[in-house]
């Protein structure tokens, strides 16, 4: 049954128009991934208004293709410029940049792109089989289960996201509070508007994404002194084929990275820890582990496979439960609502052509993507040689257009500037931004789920723990929330007994710092 549906999906994804859309999306996405200050999430957010007039399936193909392109683009800047465009590309720079310095940039890029492709493919295959099952289960969920899953999403940020758990919690709460500004659809009352008309519409998370990630990121990179000292790509077909001959040697790393990526990835904020964990494991198990960090091809394969497996896996909760696993998935979820689709398990029943077209396009999009980036790397790398004084105003103009186009309102453009300043300050102070955006997206859904649950139980919180599925999910969520408090205690107990296991601990500690950047 699954294969029939997939076949149907391919019939949609392989129409000339949708293939064309995928190519455009990947080109734009790769450019966005290469540009400083623009990443997957805000790239998708800025270009979302372009999809308003498209059929929904083509629209989602465009957005997902932009996402794949941005993931590939991040690898280019990491390897050639030592600039991780996204937090999950940080581990790619460890061995990618040294390789490029030694004149093996072509090999490193080929390995990075191929690994990305393998990791994504692995996750897409798993999504093909698991998504219908998960949607089937999710159809039986009531409000308490949905609220529990949302709580689990946010507990994962606090417990597993790395960084300061208190600050993660505050940004989640702030996001929920911002989501509640405006009209309360249940009672019809205005909340937190204090008589200001402009606040009645509330805050749109797409504008928040553009401001927090786009403008904030530019301010941050300006402060650090925008300097791109790139290494030449050294890319040609011979290098590609020679690298492909070597790569099968690392099959263990591919498999391990794919599993780590998928497993971490469908939980929120998973791509960054997944890439570090995969790198740490590869370093530990590789016979040449001591050479990691000086330019080992395997050190590029490991994080890239995991990061992309995770990036694709983040789509699984988005299409089955209507709960995005990453800010980029959140923007796509916002797109679904704008195109008139109801995200959640019913999608599989009511819009099978949309869901399966999307899944099939993950196969075609990644295949087209890997071919395109391999062929056009030098062109994409040349973007970073555009002078800073041209790039910066251009990016800001594009961000302003994107913010305005969401609702055709000027106030949104002002919000974008304000969010930019908030994003800059929060990033400097290690307040994570992804949970804020997700809370802003899920705010209304979570509040309604909570209210409906409380109505069902007539005000008792016991309902979340007395139902078996929500009880189990709640228990896991509570465990994640308490994890930051438990970890130091647990580590202290272990330190005396087994020092050999400290590599895993170091991998965990390692994902704390850079994941905030």
């Amino acid at each position, binding site marked *: 049954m699954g294969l029939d549906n997939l076949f149907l999906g391919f019939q949609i994804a392989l129409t000339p128009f949708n293939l064309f859309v995928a190519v455009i999306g990947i080109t734009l996405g790769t450019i966005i991934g290469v540009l400083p200050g623009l990443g997957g999430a805000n790239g998708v957010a800025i270009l979302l*208004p*372009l999809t*308003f*007039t498209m059929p929904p399936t083509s629209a989602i193909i465009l957005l997902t293709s932009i996402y794949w392109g941005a993931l590939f683009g991040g690898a280019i800047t990491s390897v050639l410029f030592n600039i991780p465009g996204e937090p999950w590309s940080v581990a790619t720079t460890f061995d990618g940049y040294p390789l490029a310095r030694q004149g093996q940039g072509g090999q490193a890029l080929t390995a990075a792109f191929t690994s990305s492709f393998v990791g994504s493919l692995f996750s897409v295959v798993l999504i093909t089989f698991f998504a219908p099952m998960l949607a089937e289960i999710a159809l039986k969920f009531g409000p308490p289960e949905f609220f529990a899953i949302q709580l689990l999403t946010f507990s994962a940020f606090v417990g597993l996201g790395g960084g*300061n758990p*208190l*600050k993660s*919690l*505050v940004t989640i*709460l*702030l996001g*929920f*509070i911002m989501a*509640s500004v405006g009209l309360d659809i*249940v*009672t019809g*009352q205005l*909340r*937190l508007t*204090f008589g200001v008309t402009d606040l009645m519409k509330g805050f749109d998370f797409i504008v928040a994404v553009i401001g927090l990630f786009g403008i904030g990121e*530019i*301010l941050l990179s*300006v*402060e*650090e*002194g925008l300097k791109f000292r790139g290494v030449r790509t050294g890319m040609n077909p011979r290098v590609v084929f020679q690298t492909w001959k070597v790569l099968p040697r690392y099959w263990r790393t591919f498999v391990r990275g794919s599993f780590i990526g998928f497993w971490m990835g469908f939980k929120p904020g998973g791509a960054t820890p997944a890439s570090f964990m995969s790198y740490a494991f590869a370093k530990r198990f590789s016979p040449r582990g001591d050479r990691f960090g000086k330019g080992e091809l395997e050190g590029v394969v490991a994080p890239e496979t995991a990061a992309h497996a995770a990036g694709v896996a983040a789509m699984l909760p988005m299409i089955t439960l209507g709960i995005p696993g990453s800010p980029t998935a959140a923007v796509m979820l916002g797109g679904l609502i704008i195109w008139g689709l109801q995200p959640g398990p019913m999608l599989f029943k009511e819009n099978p052509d949309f869901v399966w077209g999307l899944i099939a396009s993950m196969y075609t999009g990644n295949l087209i993507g890997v071919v395109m980036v391999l062929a056009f790397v030098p062109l994409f790398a040349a973007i970073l040689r555009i*002078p*800073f*004084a*041209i790039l*910066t*105003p*251009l990016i*800001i*103009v594009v961000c*302003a*257009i994107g913010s*305005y*186009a969401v609702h*055709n309102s*000027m106030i949104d*453009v*002002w919000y*974008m*500037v304000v969010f*930019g*300043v908030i994003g*800059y*300050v*929060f990033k*400097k*102070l290690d*307040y994570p931004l992804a949970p804020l955006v997700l809370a802003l997206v899920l705010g209304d859904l979570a*509040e309604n789920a*909570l*209210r*409906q649950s*409380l*109505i069902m139980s007539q*005000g008792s919180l016991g309902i979340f723990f007395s139902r078996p599925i929500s009880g189990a999910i709640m228990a896991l969520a509570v465990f994640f929330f308490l994890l930051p408090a438990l970890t130091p205690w647990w580590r202290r107990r272990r330190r005396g007994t087994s020092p050999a296991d400290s590599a895993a601990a170091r991998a965990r500690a390692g994902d704390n710092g850079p994941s905030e950047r």
Partner: protein
Amino acid sequence: MRAADLITATALMLLGGVVIYDAVRLGIGWGVEGPRSGFFPFWLAVLMIATSAAIIGQTVWRTGRGPFVRRAAAGSVLAVLLPAAALVLATQFIGLYVASAVYVGAYMRWIGRHSWPLTVGLAVAIPVVTFVVFERWFLVPMPKGPLEAWLGY
């Protein structure tokens, strides 16, 4: 760094206070059929105040780690932020296309010190390309001003 941390956490606490004030007005208890409008924001704000207080405690406990931003770096951040704000302000009056032409041109000339031909060329080309892509191809309207009105849009 430490001062910035304290200010941010304090600001979040004050925001929490404002939210609680409005939530109490809306009613935080049980209404006719279910929780009232202020219920969810109220508990969010209570948690936010408590967490911000914990962050303040944490920050006070630790020693400072240098300034939030160095003076020279702050200058270059403002050199991006202020023109961007000026762009948004100008867009409100003269429309996006003219404002972005002026903005790109001014930025390239005074901050990038690019030559006049390149500056003028790009300052005209970027809004024109934007116009074609958004207004023509994708039918997404942008804010317009007197120039566009004069041209008949």
